[in-house]
């Protein structure tokens, strides 16, 4: 991939842009931000851009908190649990329905995409919330009896006032006979939602995995889908492809997930991981404790999908490999038809990304399939290993920014003038006001799925719609 070159993008220009931008910041902030931005060097084995550090106060970051990572990413998507936002009302309220982790089931009966909260009042802060929590879990189980488990996600005050939710959940697991999980994901912990993923993974490790066994006989093809949160139905577009190539997807983590399947995942033969950032911990735990190998894959765009299918199939027998080729052969014409339709409308366009999880690198190939080049990318809450995986995907000299502040991002976009920015809701309207087409790449902008072959068709349509909407031409007023 090292031959990727984008006309007009050079290391020099990028470094100059960075220098000019940071020069506008106060000394201390500049020093803190400097290591987080750089020009891409595709062949560097270690990406020079630093990450996973504290957000600089006052710079307007897009980051969320540990609770957000725990509730929004790991726990929320598990459909058959009651997830309790334990603490004041806000956290559960804001995160209710605002991440598009779709679920099957009968709402309120077997699936619970709702807002359960202890709605802390002053007295709970003063006297502690453990007793209330105990009663709450009892009430929740009684009113939603078909839940298969309950999670307790701590909000900031809980850790600060010294509550012991672990004791409560332990007691209630005994009493209710269901999986009851504590998750000490107070929002002040760590530097971003990333710690929330880690804490949640640890909770799964300590309180979930290994507690159940599958209700079907084991096969050599049992796998788990890890790190797909079913945004806009991604899991439903991804899982059938794997099944078509002969694999048995026993559990999905955690998109449209079932807690008991997650609890039995130690029995699978291979873990397939899409969002490395949020779930690599668990893959490593399962590898260490149960000897389950894991493999990363990328289901964005036909090029990466085919690569991934072959990579996965290589870990199985010839039968699976043949089926994988058959899957590729079957869907490639469909993907090509999509490319034939949209690539002429998008060829030569550029885009900049700033998202979370896996997307800042994983979607690059899908854009390239459509003829769009990515001139800048970055993560809200990545770690070094994310950036190391990103560098080879990006062209030389492209801009890499970690936890970019709105101040910086605006200037970078202003200079690089991409045809599209793919980022989050907080950035969307900033750039649209500047006349730049935008897609939300956390939520697929209420569209999706974007995973798999089906997802690529929708992705291509959406990107074309964003870039080629005639509404952008209306912005310039004739008076």
């Amino acid at each position: 991939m090292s031959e990727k070159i984008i006309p007009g993008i050079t290391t020099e220009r990028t470094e100059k842009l960075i220098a000019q931008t940071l020069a506008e910041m106060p000394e201390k902030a500049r020093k803190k931000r400097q290591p987080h931005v750089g020009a891409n060097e595709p062949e560097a084995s270690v990406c020079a851009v630093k990450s996973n550090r504290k957000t600089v106060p006052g710079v307007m970051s897009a980051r969320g908190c540990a609770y957000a990572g725990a509730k929004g990413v790991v726990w929320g998507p598990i459909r058959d649990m009651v997830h309790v936002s334990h603490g004041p009302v806000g956290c559960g309220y804001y995160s209710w329905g605002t991440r598009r982790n779709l679920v099957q089931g009968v709402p309120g009966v077997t699936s619970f995409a709702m807002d359960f909260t202890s709605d802390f009042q002053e007295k709970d802060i003063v006297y502690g919330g453990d007793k209330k929590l105990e009663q709450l879990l009892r009430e929740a189980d009684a009113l939603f009896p078909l839940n298969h488990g309950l999670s307790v996600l701590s909000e900031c005050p809980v850790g600060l006032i010294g509550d012991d939710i672990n004791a409560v959940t332990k007691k209630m697991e005994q009493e209710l006979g269901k999986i009851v999980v504590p998750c000490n994901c107070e929002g002040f912990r760590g530097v971003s939602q990333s710690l929330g993923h880690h804490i949640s993974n640890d909770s799964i490790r300590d309180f979930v995995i290994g507690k159940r066994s599958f209700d079907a006989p084991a096969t050599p093809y049992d796998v788990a889908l890890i790190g797909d949160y079913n945004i806009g139905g991604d899991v439903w577009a991804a899982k059938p492809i794997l099944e078509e190539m002969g694999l048995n997807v026993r559990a999905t983590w955690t998109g449209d997930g079932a807690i008991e399947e997650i609890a039995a995942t130690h029995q699978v033969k291979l873990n397939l991981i899409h969002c490395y950032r949020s779930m690599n911990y668990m893959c490593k735990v399962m590898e260490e404790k149960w000897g389950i190998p894991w493999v990363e894959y990328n289901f964005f765009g036909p090029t990466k999908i085919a690569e991934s299918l072959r990579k996965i199939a290589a870990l199985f027998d010839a039968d699976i490999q043949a089926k994988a080729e058959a899957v590729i052969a079957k869907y490639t014409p469909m993907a090509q038809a999509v490319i034939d339709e949209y690539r002429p409308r998008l060829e030569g366009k550029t885009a900049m990304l700033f998202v979370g999880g896996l997307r800042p690198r994983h979607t690059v190939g899908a854009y390239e399939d459509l003829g769009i080049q990515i001139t800048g990318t970055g993560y809200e809450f990545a770690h070094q290993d994310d950036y190391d995986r990103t560098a080879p995907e990006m062209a030389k000299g492209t801009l890499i920014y970690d936890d970019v502040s709105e101040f910086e991002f605006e200037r970078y976009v202003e200079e690089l003038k991409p045809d599209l920015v793919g980022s989050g809701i907080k950035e969307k309207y900033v750039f649209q006001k500047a006349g730049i087409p935008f897609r939300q790449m956390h939520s697929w902008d209420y569209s999706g799925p974007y995973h798999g072959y089906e997802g690529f068709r929708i992705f291509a349509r959406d990107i074309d719609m964003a870039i080629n909407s005639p509404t952008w031409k209306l912005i310039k007023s004739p008076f």
Partner: protein
Amino acid sequence: MSAESAVRRIERTPPAEIERVRKWIFTEEYREKNFARQALVVNPAHACQPLGAEMVAHGFKDTLPFVHGSQGCASYFRSTFNRHFREPAPTVADAMTEDGAVFGGQNNLFEGLENAYSLYKPKMMAVFTTCMPEVIGDDLTAFIKNARLQGHIPADFPLPYANTPSFNGSHINGYDAMLKSILETLSAGHQSQGGDNGRINLIPGFDANTANYREYKRMLKAFDVPFTLLADISDAFDSVNDGTYRPYPGGTPLEEAAEVLNGKATLALQKYSTVNTLKWLGEAAQGTVESLAMPIGIRNTDAFLLKLSELTGKPVPEELKAERGRAVDALTDGHQYLHGRKFALYGDPDYLLGLVGFLLELGARPWHVLCSRTTRKFEKEMKALLETSEFGRGCTVYINRDLWHLHSLLATDPVDGIIGDTHGKYLARDHSIPLFRVGFPIIDRINLHRLPLIGYTGTLNLLTQLANRFLDIQDETCEDQWFEMMR
């Protein structure tokens, strides 16, 4: 218990059991059980204080909301506004983390103020807290004093601040606290020694409908009286797209707000979201300080205009009289489509009072009125309002109950329509009752904040939405033989 000891096979819920529970949650028995809960809150219809504080801060010109506490909170508030308005919501946080929890957030505040001041060039920053500094007891007064003393922020830079603990009240209380602090800060040293300046201060309260603000301004302009709208979020959250992003596209000018104590009168159109602000103004301001019901519906709007007329000594402008006449005409024409229809409403106290007034004057019935975080005072006032009309008979007020309680109410005592924010869409679906999206947040439809609900224009809009939706439903659900050209 260790994982090994507990390994048991996955159990799947039998379809018959799912069916049983599916029906059970619609029963009277379930309702009783549901209303008996004491610890669990399910689907509340209120947010936390700092969100309200942020909103009011956006309503002042060149003002940057500044969250003292966790970064994640700021992201939640911002994205909630982004989704509702489909507009930017520039806000910074000082991003306190574990060390802040141990040592307090003063250093975060210092650094945050310095960076935000330098990068986003605000003329004012409105500081408010998340629960973390509230729990650990950060002393904002001291911190801000120190920030000035140590040069992190210019000595004269306005830094109103408010304690907005999330474990107390709701977003409307944060709105109130922040508004009071902003006005206190700005007006300090601006109290005139002469008479009042003739201006009317108008406080809409926590209202996420930008068109309402424009409507207030239009009505006041019709009176041709100088006024100050506190706080005017209309341009901040409904700004032009001309190819240039502006972080502060509008808001109440700070110089104007600084004169708040010298106004001829202050009129709040919400009282539950302005309690402390009004209390302080009542003590500090020269002019009269009053609150009225939100001007939703004819009579509430009448009362508002009468009050303006009284305060200004001017007659109600002809243009507004004509609007009244046309809105009343629409109501008389349209009453037959809404007369006797039952509604469930939930939301903030002041919105509920306005909407209930409107429904009653139309002959509709506000059957279940629910506020998930409020006071006995509100309950009493709402009951009294319902008692003013024969159409309020049989209607019930529920306070500190949530939308899952409402689920049971709708299951056992159904209505024709639900009025509330987007969160009610699950109720609407479960019970096949149309949801009329009013309030905050509305994150699944576009532009609804761009259509006013207050004043005579708003009354017309509400009437149109309600009546035509029922007509849509009639046309969509009737059999061929009842499908007709006219309705």
